[in-house]
């Protein structure tokens, strides 16, 4: 079966397309929408984006491999992105990544066997005064504590 966007996503794409003079310009926002809908950007998802925006597969691929928030491989349902740049690292960024490795038992960018979690270190999140900071499912966690991480892992929820 050929892959297609849900009606809701298609509506968003149609709306975004009106903001630009050509169909290539919204590629990055559309890839983000595709990722939100299908999880990782697999080959069939990239083909769908290429068809939707009338682009060549290579035009889509060069964007996918360039931007660090676009993922070709699966991430966990909850993907912890811990800032490892200077002000956060001073406040323990590297230790947090070690803690996650210990707690989840997987290396960075590897999904736990139950599919629930993964993590990675990311570059500056612009949250340096509230270090250490983490970005997760569109949300910021500032002055991050062990309790917060423990709670997320225990409940599988971000609350």
């Amino acid at each position, binding site marked *: 079966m050929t892959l297609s966007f849900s009606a809701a996503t298609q509506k968003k794409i149609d709306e975004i397309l009106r903001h630009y003079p050509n169909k290539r310009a919204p590629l*990055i926002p559309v890839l*983000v929408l595709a990722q939100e809908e299908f999880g990782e950007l697999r080959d069939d998802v990239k083909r769908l984006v290429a068809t939707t925006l009338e682009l060549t597969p290579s035009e889509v691929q060069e*964007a996918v491999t360039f*931007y660090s*928030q676009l993922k070709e491989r699966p991430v966990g349902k909850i993907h912890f992105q811990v800032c490892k740049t*200077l*002000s956060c690292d001073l406040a323990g960024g590297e230790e947090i990544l070690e803690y996650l490795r210990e707690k989840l038992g997987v290396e960075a960018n590897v999904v736990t066997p139950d599919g629930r979690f993964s993590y990675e270190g990311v*570059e*500056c999140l612009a949250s340096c*005064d509230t270090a250490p900071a983490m970005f997760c499912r569109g949300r910021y966690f500032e002055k991050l504590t062990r309790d917060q991480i423990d709670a997320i892992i225990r409940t599988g929820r971000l609350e």
Partner: protein
Amino acid sequence: MTFEKIITKHFDDPKLYTLKGYLSCGGYEGLKRARKKEPQEIIDTIRASKLRGLGGAGFPTGVKWGFLPKKPGEKRYLCVNADEGEPGTFKDRYLMSHSPHQLLEGITIACRALEIDTCYIYCRYEFRYLFDRFNQAIADAKKEGFLDNLEIHLHHGAGAYICGEETALLESIEGKKGFPRPKPPFPAIKGLFGKPTVINNVETVMFLPSILVNGPEWFLKKGVETAGGNRVLAVSGHVKNPGCYEVPLSISLKNVIFEICGGMKDDKPLKAVIPGGASAPILKADEIDVGIDFDSLAKAGTMAGSGAVMVFNEETCMVRVVHNLIHFFSDESCGQCTPCREGTTWLKKIIYGIEKGEGSESDLDLLLRITGQMSAKTICALADGAIGPVRSGVEKFRDDFIKHIREKRCSWPKWSWRGN
């Protein structure tokens, strides 16, 4: 110290982000003044105010606007750079989350001056929690007639520091990977979709309404000889009270740390300060009695950059500081120019070796030699930014590097997570 805040003046008002809240604080008054002026008069006003670009380069905004060709009717664009990613910088996020209408008012003023009808706000993807608030602000302002006939679109990237470089930002809005463009042609001549384009930083644009309301003389009088207004600094690291602070340009870096931010955390002695983001050469503790304006910091051999001040106490390993930053630049180099791609990689490897205790004294000369091979040899400024902390680190904190090499280890305390 008494001084009048300009752009963060009403930030204590929790409803400032709504249109009603913004209007009750005198919002859109600058636009009303702009509507009574001819476009060229607005440009002249901004030029006379000596407002400088606050994204990092410090280029005079009115002069930048003047580069746009005068061809009435030709399509042209304004792009607002909200791709805040320079390590240590978080002022644009702070400004946008508190006062989106102030940015929209500034955009509308700029577009009147430049006779532009389409603006893209290029925001980094990680700020997506702000998108709804922003789109709501755009809809509200439009409904109440504050955006004239202007189309403002919020566009986002997907994680790439280089897209804060203005021509990489244009490539990204065009749906491409963020490779900076060779210049000339400059964006004012050939920018977004091949059309004349002005790119301004969030904070720069947010100062515009106050200049229209109070006049350029007022703005200039608040600043220093070569730059008008105040500036918002983002301070992080080992200070008692990190955060964003609007300060006068005449203040010294020392006063920012010891008065505005309450001094050093746990009263530990100061070792080093990065005054303007990761690309700014590092200052030693005895070099901080210097003004924070663009020209004073340039004279001190560093830069005001994005206004990101990072502060380090005497227990900080400067090899690790430099390694962290060069790792960042190596990660974020777009890879287009060989001196940058290879140079940042080798600098990172060599400094990592020193940090682990595997370095030799000849490495220090090698590091400096590599930086010489990178400087002024690339399309954009990332490589020159990357060598800032490396050169200043090796030259000013040579003892830290030598200690690692002689003891074959890092003997400084580990950076630890104090969370519970």
